[in-house]
């Protein structure tokens, strides 16, 4: 140990592969590459969707064709060639009637590598997992416990079959097909995702959780998530993802819609760890996500995100505070290292009276990365006594990275009260030496300082997620010293 110098450590970290960079060889059923009406129809047919759904997708496709990829974000990347992507890929061995015991052993092995063995999940009473591997959900647990409460938690493809009235009523109401380029694309080709409905007055007794990952090389992943919390209900939803290491850029364009009816509360937590590319900036996932929630009267939506992965991130989980006294919250940690680029933030749209929003954003940049916070606080003329508090803190490591803050405020009501605080700091050599002197090596010291910096947000995560998130922060910043 005594011969293990700082240089050895640095060297070892340099060669450290992406933790989840493995590839499982599962036979896949992949559509031909490219996108046209036939492909959209084929996806819909494959899913045995009703006519209205097929039409909805086709409509979205038509809209998408007329749109252009946005380029206002503070990110630079080679635009994906949408005609060179395969839009559907499902593990071939799927059988809708099978139980967990019937799950493909290769898949089970893969979960194990990801640290989420299905066996373990059965024992964990507090987390029900709906795992999405390459677009199709393959295992759903705890359905029974949830069923007794009338809670619906299933792949959205199943919900389209089993609860068409709910899906039809809400899908696309929060994020319309024509909302933006990626939302339109997702609407046309979404493969699967989660659907969740909490009935009136029900407090969901466990955290609902979904694991997304990309497995098939060159496959785009387009999840669609719809969470509906009926009047007076409560749900905490966790979403985490990891992706294996691939050289070509992978496109990820998800849409998440949350609906919190009167007096309902939704807590939505994300840990995002898609492959960020290597230390030369080659490869990595393009993560272009549209997430938005609607709050009716006295409702509350809380977004918490830990973004450590992806080569390019473009993501603004937002709240439309339509009902009086509704509350929106956004807690975010975004880490960028090497050549990663993140442009993330939120939109808080105050429509109702006495609406409140809180934004806490922690950006950590290392290497040659660029990390931007972009946020909009909008107060409509009817929104009397709207309140917002925003805090954007940036932590820089080294001299080659960038941190940017783009706060937009539009207030049309004189009673609005909007506060914005921002800080930028740098991890200092003195801090590192202080830790070193106490026996804490430089990597660990940085992890400690970063975790301290992010604490306000980490504290908002459910316990089991917070631990995972802390580890992720450490992994993401490994090798960033020097």
């Amino acid at each position: 140990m005594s011969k293990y110098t700082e240089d050895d450590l640095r060297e070892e970290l340099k060669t450290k592969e992406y933790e989840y960079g493995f590839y499982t060889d599962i036979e896949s059923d992949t559509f031909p590459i490219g996108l046209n009406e036939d492909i959209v129809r084929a996806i819909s047919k494959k899913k045995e969707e009703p006519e209205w759904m097929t039409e909805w997708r086709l409509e979205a496709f038509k809209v998408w064709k007329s749109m252009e990829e946005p380029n206002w974000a503070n990110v630079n990347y080679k635009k994906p060639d949408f005609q060179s992507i395969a839009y559907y890929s499902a593990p071939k061995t799927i059988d809708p009637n099978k139980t967990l015991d019937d799950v493909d052993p290769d898949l089970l092995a893969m979960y194990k590598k990801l640290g989420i063995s299905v066996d373990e999940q059965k024992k964990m009473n507090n987390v029900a997992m709906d795992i999405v591997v390459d677009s199709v959900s393959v295992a759903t647990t705890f359905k029974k416990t949830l069923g007794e409460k009338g809670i619906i938690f299933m792949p959205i493809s199943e919900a389209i079959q089993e609860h068409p009235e709910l899906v039809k009523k809400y899908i696309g109401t929060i994020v319309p097909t024509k909302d933006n380029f990626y939302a339109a694309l997702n609407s046309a080709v979404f493969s699967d995702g989660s659907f969740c409905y909490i009935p009136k007055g029900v407090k969901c007794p466990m955290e609902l959780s979904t694991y997304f990952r990309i497995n098939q090389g060159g496959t785009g992943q387009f999840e669609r998530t719809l969470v509906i919390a009926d009047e007076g209900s409560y749900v905490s939803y966790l979403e985490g993802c990891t992706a294996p290491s691939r050289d070509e850029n992978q496109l990820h364009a998800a849409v998440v819609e949350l609906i919190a009816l009167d007096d309902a509360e939704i807590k939505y937590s994300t840990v995002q760890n898609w492959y960020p590319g290597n230390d030369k900036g080659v490869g990595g996932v393009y993560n272009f996500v549209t997430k938005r929630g609607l709050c009716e009267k006295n409702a509350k939506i809380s977004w918490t995100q830990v973004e450590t992965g992806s080569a390019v991130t473009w993501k603004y989980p937002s709240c439309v505070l339509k009902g009086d006294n509704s509350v929106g919250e956004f807690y975010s940690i975004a880490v960028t290292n090497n050549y990663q680029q993140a442009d993330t933030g939120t939109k808080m749209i105050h429509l109702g009276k006495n609406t409140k929003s809180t934004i806490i954003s922690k950006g950590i940049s290392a290497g040659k990365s660029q990390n931007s916070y972009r946020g909009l606080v909008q107060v409509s003329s009817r929104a009397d006594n709207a309140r917002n508090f925003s805090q954007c803190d940036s932590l820089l490591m080294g001299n080659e990275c960038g941190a940017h803050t783009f706060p937009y405020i539009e207030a049309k009501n004189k009673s609005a009260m909007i506060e914005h605080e921002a800080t930028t700091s740098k991890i200092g050599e003195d801090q590192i030496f202080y830790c070193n002197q106490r026996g804490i090596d430089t990597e660990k010291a940085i992890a400690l300082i970063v975790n301290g910096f992010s604490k306000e947000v980490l504290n908002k995560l459910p316990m089991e997620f917070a631990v995972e998130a802390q580890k992720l922060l450490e992994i993401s910043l490994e090798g960033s010293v020097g």
Partner: protein
Amino acid sequence: MLQIKNLHASVENKSILKGINLEVKAGEVHAIMGPNGSGKSTLASVIAGKEEYEVEKGQILLNGEDLEDLAAEERAHKGIFLSFQYPVEIPGVSVTNFIKTAINETRKAKGLEDMPAKDMLKMIREKAEMLEIDRKFLSRSLNEGFSGGEKKRNEIFQMAMLEPKLAILDETDSGLDIDALRIVANGVNKLKSKDNAVVVITHYQRLLDYIVPDFVHVLYNGRIVKSGGKELAHELEEKGYDWVKEEVNA
């Protein structure tokens, strides 16, 4: 314990230490005094292994082992502790979390398991009591918004937790009122044993009324120009440093 032989060190090409010789044996307390800018804090930093300082010549040995190739954290693992003159703030990291990490990293380096939470808690309680540290204090972010006295007390608390072989106290008395000074000094005295050693760096004699040194050295212009017993400190207090400077320059 500690042997320093003809140590020359510089920072940013500016030569600061110009041939230090010092031997500290287990069970001893040494005081290093000297006017501002004489190199006292530099000596502390060089022993602790701060990267910015370059050792140009000479050796630092801890129990016979040359420290030259060891990083700061490895020196800490071997039992060197530096109580900082200006302890840094680490927002969001509690005193407890910090000391827990420090102890477990040191144990890890020695191939030991993490200290069981129960033992850690017991130890924290004991040491906090010894230094009259309030429980609430332990949950605060490290040094953030601490008064001068709180910062120094926190340094000695960490020393108590880490149980170093060689503790270097760099201007621990600065920023302390008389009560805090007594508490800190009492803490150091309780931690003293025949197996460890303490080097007290101070500008004033005041602290040495409480932590009584076996040896006093005067550092001036990068060299130890005078050594003696505790009475030397009193002499310096009375007469200032000018007579030492004159002696050297003569």
